């Protein structure tokens, strides 16, 4: 049994599981990542693009997948299940079943010959059954690990004892029909669950004809249809006639917000998903007509409303607020939708293709898992967690993240994953560690000043390359190239024996540069670099020529030209190799303390996460009390008590030995960079103090927008939700009866000047309306809204409110509720509110005893100052802009600075807690190291050439360059440079260069081919 208490088991290798594993591993924790399918990646690889940036899903995910696979502290167990967890927090034993793969992953070279020969075609699960795969296959093309596996349910030999074709063609003898399931016990300190969700299966929705009508598809199927790597190569065509559809309908809330099927929750992501798909579909074909049928558009996330606006006004997507009653298939396959508008009008319209925006539901098997692990599920079957502990299951030591405990989009999943890690590490005893250790064990040969002696190894990759390219010819040609000392062809360059042989050749021929011509550096460069490093060469003295993925596989029918191309590619690689120089990754020391700016819920939670992991925290608050906006929150939808939780949190902060609270304090200046920040602080009495710290967490919060609309400030009967909540709490209602209460939503949100949804107001107003009903049973509630955005599990409270008799009036920005005082001279006068009822299509007039406004959440003005000080960006709304809206939601592009809470965007307490823990956790990935290594391939300055014009500083996205105004030259911060080279290409003076991709190295590539001016026919 593996006995490592400082390790964590992560169940589920979707984006949440991957993120949790990477964060843990970066903190020095050993991770066992358990995944049921044959690959890591989860749902994201199935997606074509992601909202609201239309980022390519695979582009952003694959670096994280390979990082996960490469990390020495992460062990991936594919095709595995978690059966049982016994023991206590800090000391669990997990029983894991690793199912038989029938292919030896050590021997398999992923050549794909087996799949080509396999006679059994089965539905491809990854492509939602829209394409066939084989009984021996890779889950998808970019699977990690990339080795093949056999599906025992379909394999002819395993089911019927015949065939064995794969064994016959396998060039490395990797097939093993005797493979058995294995049971292993893993000792860990904590468990993180991240099993994700299943898409809702609409087969039971007879009225939409799914599976009966070939042109009704689910949104996930449609996503595969849109994907360039999908079954139709990105050409959207109908299944019935393979013609491109001209009119597409998206039907929202299929399997969401539906009491009749026990799914009275909102799946949160489908509105944006449909908007994205409609935009992408329109980008595929401009003439395409796309309509989205919806109840409310729930574009509640950061920058979502702008995306919604873009879809409607720029792309011309039709948004039709109506309920689709049923669909009838017409001859020829088109579909007639019958739908009902708010006012009861019915319309018929024909579409070519219907996409059902299916909701998210708990994973099949989550009931069994909950029983096996002894954790509670909520009433919808999602893992239970409560408002103030959003990342904890009911069993101590087992944490939850991703959509397993409720619908989430990608960034929320990533946030929850990092957040869950903060809980897990509390149970471990982590020391600070040195990442540079291990790298310097082999003594490196000094090659500087030596003549280049290049060794070339040309790989056959079985017949993958050699079947097309004349590899012997290529290897022979290479012998004649300048500086090439040795060249040979090898069967599998990546096989263990060949790697050993490369080391021997380095020794034998005193090679100081190595070129391998084989598959692709994206998968194999790290392996070869390690190899030459083992032979005493600096790993950067390696160059690869891609003669498989980009040559033999792409020119299978043109062997001669493929050979000519391979020769050129090798020549170019040698050209570059000749000029390669050894690179060092320099260590940057990390101060172990953290600075947290803002003493609200997010700041306090983040401070606790860091301090609980053993690091000192400076918690800076400009006011004289802790708690921020939470001091005005008295109720919760689920009945829990915010003030009690706040009091407990403040008490923990104040008594924590690792936290120093600096009240009444302002930040004057922050200098330095990751690991080495210096902050000048001024406290209330004007005293200055300098703090040194390794990281910064920005949790500056937000505040209720000060509105002047709807008579606010002029009438005592017009108040904000914040004021109303306090009124409910203190039960100090205005004198007289309180019978007619009007709520107005979106005051200042989603309109010019603030094109964003403040996210929490719908749920907050629903909550306070329910409170009012419990205290003043006779009060009539009128709710003026644009879209009700009670996403996730808040939906049930919204339907409760509706069912309780509250009246809802939808308004549009051009037709806002009108208000006047019944007695204009009396500030205590009741308010006459005119609401347009789109159902009855007439005005309704209410003399309100109270008008409660839900104002927007504004970012604090001082964000601008802080942004300048820290050189971090704000978006157009004044909210801090994270490094990547999908996959780096709490990081900034500048290392060592993190964001959480309202400073990032409006969010509720639960979300703030999760994000604050995530920021804490991301901070710990730095703090847990004594030092980090700067990149090897970073920019450098030749001072004598620099004229200090500052273009490099301007184009650097990482604030890694500054102009020293005294000297008039650029200075690069090695710790921050990521090595993109944008500064280098922007430097007219030739003062900048990029190590590893220097001008000289690249010039030698461009010049390496001997091309005659007018070359003859090949």
């Amino acid at each position, binding site marked *: 049994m593996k006995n490592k208490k400082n390790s964590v088991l992560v169940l589920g290798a979707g984006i949440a599981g991957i993120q949790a594993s990477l964060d843990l591993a970066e903190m020095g924790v050993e991770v066992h990542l358990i995944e049921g399918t044959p690959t890591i990646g989860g749902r994201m690889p199935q997606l074509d693009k992601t909202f609201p940036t239309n980022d390519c899903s695979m582009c952003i995910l694959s670096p994280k997948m390979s990082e996960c696979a490469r990390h020495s502290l992460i062990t991936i167990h594919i095709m595995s299940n978690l059966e049982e967890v016994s023991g206590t927090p800090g000391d669990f034993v997990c029983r894991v079943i690793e199912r038989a793969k029938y292919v030896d992953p050590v021997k398999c070279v992923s050549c794909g010959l087996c799949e080509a020969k396999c006679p059994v075609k089965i539905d491809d699960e990854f492509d939602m059954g829209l394409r066939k795969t084989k009984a021996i296959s890779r889950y998808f093309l970019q699977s990690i690990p990339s080795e093949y596996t056999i599906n025992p349910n379909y394999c002819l030999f395993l089911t019927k004892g015949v065939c064995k074709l794969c064994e016959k063609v396998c060039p490395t003898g990797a097939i093993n029909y005797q493979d058995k399931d294995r049971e292993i016990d893993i000792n860990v300190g904590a468990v993180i669950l991240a099993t994700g969700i299943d898409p809702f299966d609409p087969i039971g929705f007879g009225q939409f004809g799914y599976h009966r009508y070939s042109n009704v598809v689910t949104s996930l199927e449609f996503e595969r249809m849109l994907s360039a790597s999908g079954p139709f190569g990105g050409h959207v065509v109908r299944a019935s006639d393979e013609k491109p559809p001209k009119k597409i309908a998206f039907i929202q809330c299929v399997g969401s917000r539906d009491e009749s099927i026990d799914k009275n929750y909102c799946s949160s992501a489908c509105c944006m998903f449909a908007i994205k798909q409609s935009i992408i579909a329109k980008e595929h074909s401009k003439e395409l007509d796309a309509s989205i049928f919806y109840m409310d558009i729930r574009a509640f996330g950061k920058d979502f409303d702008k995306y919604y606006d873009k879809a409607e006004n720029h792309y011309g997507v039709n948004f039709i607020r109506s309920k689709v009653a049923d669909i009838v298939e017409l001859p020829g396959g088109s579909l007639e939708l019958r739908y009902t508008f708010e006012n009861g009008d019915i319309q018929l319209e024909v579409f070519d293709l219907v996409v059902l925006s299916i909701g998210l539901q708990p994973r099949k098997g989550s009931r069994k898992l909950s029983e096996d692990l002894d954790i509670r599920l909520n009433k919808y079957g999602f893992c239970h967690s409560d408002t103030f502990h959003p990342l904890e299951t009911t069993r101590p030591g087992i944490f939850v993240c991703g959509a397993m405990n409720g619908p989430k989009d990608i960034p929320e999943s990533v946030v929850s994953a990092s957040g869950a890690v903060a809980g897990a590490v509390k149970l471990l005893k982590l020391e600070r560690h040195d990442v540079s250790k291990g790298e310097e064990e082999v003594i490196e040969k000094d090659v500087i000043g030596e003549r280049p002696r290049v060794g070339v190894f040309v790989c056959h990759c079985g017949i993958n390359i050699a079947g097309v390219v004349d590899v012997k010819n290529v290897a022979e040609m290479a012998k004649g190239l300048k500086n090439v000392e040795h060249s040979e062809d090898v069967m599998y360059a990546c096989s263990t024996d060949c790697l050993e042989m490369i080391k021997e050749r380095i020794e034998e021929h005193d090679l100081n540069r190595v070129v391998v011509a084989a598959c692709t550096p994206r998968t194999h460069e790290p392996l070869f670099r390690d190899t030459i490093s083992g032979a005493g060469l600096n790993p950067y003295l390696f160059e690869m020529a891609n003669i498989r993925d980009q040559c033999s596989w792409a020119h299978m029918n043109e062997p001669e030209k493929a050979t000519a191309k391979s020769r050129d590619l090798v020549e170019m690689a040698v050209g570059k190799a000749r000029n390669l120089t050894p690179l060092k990754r320099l260590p940057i020391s990390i101060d172990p303390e953290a600075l947290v700016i803002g003493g609200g819920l997010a700041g306090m939670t983040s401070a606790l996460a860091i301090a609980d992991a053993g690091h000192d925290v400076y918690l800076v608050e400009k006011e004289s009390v802790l708690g921020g906006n939470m001091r005005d929150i008295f109720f919760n939808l689920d009945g829990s008590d915010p003030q009690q939780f706040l009091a407990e949190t403040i008490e923990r902060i104040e008594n924590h030995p690792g936290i120093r609270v600096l009240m009444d304090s302002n930040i004057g200046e922050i200098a330095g960079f990751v690991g080495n920040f210096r902050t000048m602080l001024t406290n209330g009495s004007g005293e200055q103090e300098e703090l040194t710290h390794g990281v910064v967490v920005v949790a500056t919060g937000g505040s209720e927008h000060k509105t002047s609309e709807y008579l606010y400030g002029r009438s005592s009967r017009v108040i904000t939700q914040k004021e109303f909540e306090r009124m409910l709490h203190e039960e100090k209602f205005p004198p007289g009866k309180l019978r007619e209460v009007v709520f107005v939503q979106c005051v200042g949100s989603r309109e010019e000047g603030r094109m964003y949804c403040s996210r929490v107001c719908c749920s907050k107003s629903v909550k306070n309306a329910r409170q009012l009903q419990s205290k003043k049973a006779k009060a009539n509630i009128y709710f003026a809204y644009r879209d009700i955005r009670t996403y996730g599990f808040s939906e049930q409270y919204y339907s409760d409110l509706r069912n309780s008799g509250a009246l809802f009036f939808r308004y549009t920005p051009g037709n806002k509720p009108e208000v006047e005082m019944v007695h204009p001279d009396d500030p205590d006068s009741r308010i006459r509110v005119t609401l347009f009822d789109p159902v009855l299509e007439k005005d309704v007039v209410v003399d309100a005893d109270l008008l409660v406004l839900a104002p927007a959440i504004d970012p604090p003005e001082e964000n601008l100052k802080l942004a300048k000080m820290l050189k971090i960006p704000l978006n157009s709304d004044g909210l801090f802009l994270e490094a990547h809206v999908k996959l780096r939601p709490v990081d900034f592009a500048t290392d060592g600075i993190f964001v959480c809470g309202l400073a990032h965007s409006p969010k509720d307490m639960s979300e703030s807690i999760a994000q604050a823990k995530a920021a804490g956790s991301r901070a710990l990935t730095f703090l847990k190291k004594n030092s980090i290594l700067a990149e090897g391939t970073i920019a450098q300055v030749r001072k004598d050439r620099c*004229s200090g014009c500052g*273009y490099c500083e*301007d184009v650097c996205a990482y604030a890694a360059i500054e*102009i020293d105004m005294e000297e008039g030259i650029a200075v690069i911060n090695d710790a921050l440079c990521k090595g993109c080279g944008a500064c280098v290409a922007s430097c*007219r*003076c030739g003062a900048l260069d990029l190590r590893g991709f*220097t001008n000289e190295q690249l*010039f030698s590539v461009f010049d390496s081919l001997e091309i005659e001016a007018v070359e003859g026919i090949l």
Partner: protein
Amino acid sequence: MNTTNELRKSIKALIAEKKVDLFLAWEKGSLPLTATPLFVSTEDQADRAVFDVTCGNNLSIYFTKDRKQFANRKVGIAVKGCDARSVVLNILEKQIQRENVVIVGVPCDGVLDRKKVLAKTDGREVLELIDNGETVTVKGNGFDLLLNRNEILSSSCLACTYPDAQEYDVFIGDARGEVPNESRLKEIHDFQALSASERWDKTRNEYERCIRCYACRNVCPSCYCNVCFVDQNDPKWIGSTCDYTDTLIFHVIRNLHVAGRCVECGACQRACPMDIDLLMLNRKVAMEVKDRFGDIAGLDINGKPAMSDFREDEKQKFIMG
């Protein structure tokens, strides 16, 4: 109004009030048709300052080529429209600080191109030039020519859009305002109307003449690298021959280096001994920069130089597929 007198007065006042330690102006050159730079640090010296049609030099060049000398000194500078744009670029490119410069704009009606005058006199030496406004009179041994002003002005001036300083502290005389100048682009449009091979032939004919004397670069107010890329050897950026591919690459890259930075002062063209039409490519680049990024070099002191900036929603029709 006599600009020279006003300029002298202005310089004297700035020196007297200690607003500047040094003032950069022009004085009459030792040869006819020329003015040379004048560094004024006393009121007396100010009387040597002149401003007329011979003052082609862009004085901002000293800010970059002799940077150390100007560090932490208050410097005044007399500028034409194009010179002012250079000063703005120098500020944006951190070569000098705005608070250290006092910019004095002078009303400019264009400067002469000596080569054009000498072409009119068939190379005979000019001893005197009289500016009559619409015309100029050039006198030499045994000749006395009345020339139309447009015949001898620098090509850059004939197509000038911003003759006045847009950024200044003091402006002498009357500003001419923005001159809508279609001719500046007409040449480009005409050239673009030719076929690719006709354009290639013309380009080749032009740049084949280049003898790589680098005069264009040396007079350029925007060329201030410590070592120009053509002079760098480690690595060698371009071949050092006078093969037209080498010379053309030098000029194309130089054009790109001054993209969003070329103020179209025409100094390069006036300096070229081979009479290469250097401005054409500069204007083409400036046109693209303006059309695509909305940027005109050196006009906006609060902006960013075009090539150090980007917007997410720029036109990208040139991207394939």
